[in-house]
């Protein structure tokens, strides 16, 4: 009888959710040559103290949560990206020059509590 409750609770726990960044949606398609879009993730969900060890949490996240229990002004640990990777982008600048550069931290690979 407890299974459905746990399932519904786990839906709200910290995890990654797929997201597609489309440069046309951002209005950047006129100057970004490639890629036109790329897949990444966003992080969303709760970080309950009892389950934090399952969520790729840092030691700091545990300490922050402990501090929160004593000093409520300090927020609880939140669901954040814990592993990021770069993407390469090819684009025009205002002078019409073409630039090829990789940009760090553009794709979220993993999420955790921090």
């Amino acid at each position, binding site marked *: 009888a407890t299974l459905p409750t746990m399932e519904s609770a786990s839906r709200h726990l910290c995890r990654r959710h797929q997201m597609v960044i489309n440069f046309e949606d951002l209005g*950047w398609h006129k*100057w970004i*040559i490639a890629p036109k879009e790329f897949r990444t993730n966003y992080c969303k969900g709760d970080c309950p103290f009892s389950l934090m060890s399952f969520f790729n949490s840092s030691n700091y996240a545990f300490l922050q949560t402990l501090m929160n229990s004593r000093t409520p002004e300090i927020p609880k640990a939140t669901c954040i990206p814990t592993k990021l*990777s*770069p993407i390469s982008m*090819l684009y025009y600048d205002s*002078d019409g*020059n*073409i630039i*090829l550069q990789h940009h760090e931290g553009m794709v979220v690979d993993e999420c955790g509590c921090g």
Partner: protein
Amino acid sequence: PQLEEASLLHFMGLNKVPSPRIAQPVPSILMKIFQERQKAVATGHYRKLCYVKEFGVPGNLIRLFQDQGALFYPKEVVQVPSCTQKFLFFNLSVITQDEQLMMAKLDLRLGLNAYNALQEDLEVVVSLIQRRAPQPDQKLLLRYLPRSQGILHVDLLDVVKEWNSNPQSNLGLVLELLPKGENNSTVTIYPQETCDNWRQSIRASLMVVTLNIKECPRFSHFPRKRR
């Protein structure tokens, strides 16, 4: 949202949303490098992002600068001394202090009009402008360019290093085309239409590869090429 957009653009090294007036075509080599880098990211080989295999140099940022000679040396301000001369200028101010110059290559593409206008195979002279005077100062290159070829690459690494360390010294280049065997272009007088056709038919761009030590710390002490 505008503030967030501005922050992200600043992080990318841009002051505002670019609105390029003329979208120059993307060279196939750049598209190939882009695709190789996408593969490297997909397979987790991030070290490959700090080396440009296609050019054989370390580097994580590649720029193709457009010639702005017509803006820097407008006709009404500077009298171009010869019909077959053209001023070239590349605005390199976007290169930051954190970047180390690894490659600078001038690409010259001569359309058929350049040859048709002069009715000859051509000799190309590229000279460095070192002071504000109509005559160029230092010849960098003199090369025969047969009618069938039309593309010329000139190594400008040392010149661009000097421009980068002392931006005021960047006064551009003069490109001169001479019919093969003719030493003095002023001897022959060409009709204005011929001159205009020739200038419009030439495309010049500067490919620059730089390495940001902060982003590629392991490449900061790459081995020097044996002479």
